[in-house]
């Protein structure tokens, strides 16, 4: 807390959101409803309805503007905030008032969002991410909207570190704080948008565009739309080669849309390390977003390689930080913990190293593979999926045949199918399902297995998972706040277990699935020394020594209670994790 913040008169009082918020609301609603009501009134009058009807429409338009504006004005007048001492306080609510007070050291991140319609008014919105995980409800506090200057002031003030706290905190790199100017870690290169063209969104967006076009067409009458569809289908049935340029066109439209989405989200991308110990991410074409993330909230870094882009060497970097989950904001395609768009892999690794202030990226470390039993488990799953696909195929084939037979025209080459026996059709369906399942699922299984890996580095626990989105998480070992080792009935005979490190950051847990049980326990013991060691079943001498510690501990009261209803268990007892492989293996 700096001196001027504490001075009376500056922050002692409550502040309001910008009054322009109410005007912005009125203007936005007016822009929609005033022309709408006017057009409606004119149309009604032209159709020949009496005057009162037109007046009613105009009145309705006025109400649609006035009522939400009044509500907004009420909300504005009831909302106050202040940064007092070490707390951010917010009072809000029209019917039920709420008073929220968050200690500043619980604030993890501050987003400054400037939607395009707020730009001429000089307004911005603030989203404050907090570390309150335990309580229900949102962990995010929103201030909608304040002036730009006020937003920047709040951002700086909320993230400014209190000297006393910084001295006690164990995560920040104190020496680097407060000196120098912002250092740029990354800046957009437009050529990176090329990766968007080959993303998985491309075909989806292409199909969506075709759907949207059909929808627009159907405004001019369903019959006309149906005629167009039938015409196109007939053309394709007659000349199947037409499909090729058609698909290509759809993909092109999809690629353009995917690139547009990425350009909107990441235009002007910059990642800086600010002198006050925060990482600052700026991006956005229409909606400018600025995310400030305190470095001492950072618990590691994540490198993601989603599938279609992975073939072209792309990777993206995300933060593993407390108070930042992977969900996007409302209508924002980018998750809040994203630190970069798709980059070339080498750059992504370099950036991930920079983010955690290492010379070599922990995410690039060589990883230990998981046991072959993990591959067998995935292959088994793939085969089960294939069987299910075959059964589905067999089940779906007769209805398909029936639907084909009911069509007025038949695509070439399907006549035989439509006329075949039901049993043969079912068999064909099963075969098709099995083929599709095997062709998709077996490569998936192998890729999922090859994605598995783990390592313990001097400062980090690194785990890698995923077939479609191969995710490498480098979690700081001092950010691990617990372990969970779990075994499913199917993992047990294979001698496997899932090791999960729990943490306050991100989704709260990061797993290494299907490690060999003993290796998993060793890994956990290595990553957080001194925690698990006391629970390991060591040779007999050490074990009895461990029992002695317990009896000799200072907690006499509970030790006395121990004798009542519990019994000491030795290491070989039931319920322990045993790492011996099952017999016959």
């Amino acid at each position, binding site marked *: 807390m700096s001196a001027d913040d504490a001075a009376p008169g500056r922050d002692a009082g409550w502040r309001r959101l910008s009054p322009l918020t109410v005007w912005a609301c009125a203007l936005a609603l007016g822009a929609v409803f005033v022309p709408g009501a006017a057009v409606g009134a004119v149309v009604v009058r032209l159709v020949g309805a009496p005057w009162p009807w037109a007046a009613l429409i105009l009145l309705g338009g006025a109400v649609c503007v006035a009522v939400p504006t009044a509500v907004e004005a009420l909300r504005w007048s009831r909302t106050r905030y202040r940064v007092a001492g070490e707390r951010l306080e917010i009072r809000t609510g029209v019917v039920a008032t709420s008073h929220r007070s968050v200690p500043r*050291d*619980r604030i993890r991140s501050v987003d400054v969002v400037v939607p395009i319609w707020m730009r001429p008014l000089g307004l911005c919105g603030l989203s404050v991410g907090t*570390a309150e*995980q*335990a309580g229900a409800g949102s962990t995010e506090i929103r201030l909608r909207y304040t002036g730009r200057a006020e937003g920047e002031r709040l951002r700086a003030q909320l993230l400014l570190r209190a000297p006393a706290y910084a001295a*006690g905190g*164990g995560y920040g790199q104190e020496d680097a704080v407060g000196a120098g100017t912002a250092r740029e870690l990354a800046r957009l290169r437009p050529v990176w948008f090329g990766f968007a063209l080959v993303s998985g969104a491309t075909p989806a967006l292409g199909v969506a565009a075709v759907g949207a076009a059909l929808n627009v067409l159907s405004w001019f009458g369903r019959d006309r739309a149906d005629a167009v569809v039938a015409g196109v289908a007939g053309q394709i049935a007659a000349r199947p080669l037409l499909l090729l340029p058609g698909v290509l066109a759809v993909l092109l439209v999809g690629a353009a849309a995917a690139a547009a989405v990425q350009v909107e989200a990441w235009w002007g991308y910059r990642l800086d390390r600010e002198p006050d110990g925060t990482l600052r991410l700026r991006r956005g074409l229409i909606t400018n977003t600025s995310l400030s993330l305190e470095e001492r909230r950072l618990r590691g870094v994540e490198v993601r390689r989603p599938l279609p882009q992975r073939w072209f060497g792309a990777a993206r970097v995300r933060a593993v930080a407390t108070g930042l989950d992977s969900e996007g904001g409302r209508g924002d395609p980018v998750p809040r913990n994203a630190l970069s768009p798709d980059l070339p892999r080498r750059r992504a690794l370099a950036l991930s190293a920079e983010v955690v202030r290492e010379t070599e990226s922990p995410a690039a470390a060589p990883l230990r593979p998981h046991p072959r039993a993990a591959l067998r488990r995935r292959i088994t799953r793939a085969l089960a999926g294939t069987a299910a696909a075959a059964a589905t195929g067999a089940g779906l084939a007769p209805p398909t045949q029936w639907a084909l037979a009911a069509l007025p025209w038949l695509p070439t080459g399907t006549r035989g199918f439509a006329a075949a026996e039901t049993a043969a059709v079912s068999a064909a369906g099963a075969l098709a399902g099995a083929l599709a399942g095997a062709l998709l699922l077996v490569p998936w299984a192998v890729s999922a297995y090859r994605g598995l890996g783990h390592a*313990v580095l001097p400062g980090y626990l690194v785990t890698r998972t995923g077939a479609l989105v191969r995710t490498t998480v480098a979690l700081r070992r001092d*950010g691990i*706040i*617990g*372990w*969970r*080792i*779990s075994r*499913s*009935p199917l993992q*047990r005979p294979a001698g496997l277990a899932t090791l*999960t490190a*729990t*943490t*306050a950051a991100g*989704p*709260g*847990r990061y797993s290494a699935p299907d490690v*060999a049980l*003993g*290796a998993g*326990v*060793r890994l956990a*013991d*290595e990553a957080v020394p001194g*925690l*698990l060691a*006391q*629970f*390991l*079943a*060591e040779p007999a001498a050490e*074990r009895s020594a461990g029992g002695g510690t*317990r009896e000799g*501990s200072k907690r006499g*009261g*509970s030790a006395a*209670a*121990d004798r*009542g*209803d*519990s*019994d*000491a*268990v030795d290491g070989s*007892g*039931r*319920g*322990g*994790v*045993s*790492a*011996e492989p099952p017999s016959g293996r």
Partner: protein
Amino acid sequence: MTTTRSAPSATVLRPPRHRVARRAVVWWSTRILSGTALAAGAPALAALAVPALGTPPEVLTTALWWAAAALGGAGLATAAVVPQWRFRVHRWEVTDTAVYTASGWLWQEWRVAPMSRVQTVDTQRGPLQRLFRLADVVVTTASAAGPISIKGIDGDRARSVAAELTEAAHNTEGDAT
């Protein structure tokens, strides 16, 4: 690599030191049995009530009785087996530096949380638990992965464990993240 262990088979987690209270078996059984009584009672009551209201087909009454019998049988079997199993697999331990629990029969789970990362400690006692003088201890950390809970230990014991844990959590600097 801070520690290295030569033989892989040497690395084994021992089970936590304490079992839950013996009375927890009675508590779990009572809970399952009361659930069973409700589940099996509903079709049985219906089977008794329907003939009084009209003349239902024979099949309906028979089916209702069978349903009651099946639900009751399944409930009794569960009540006979599951509490014993739980008693065998649910274990816990609190040391000076960590909380350690084991649970699960088919899906086994072991959880460890260092004392320094404990944020809140609650004891919870339902009406049935109060009857048997039992309590749950729920230990939350800053992780969204869910709390560690020790279910069905003696009420007084739970209070002392919670007090101990609260003290340890209170001594922790920072916000335990």
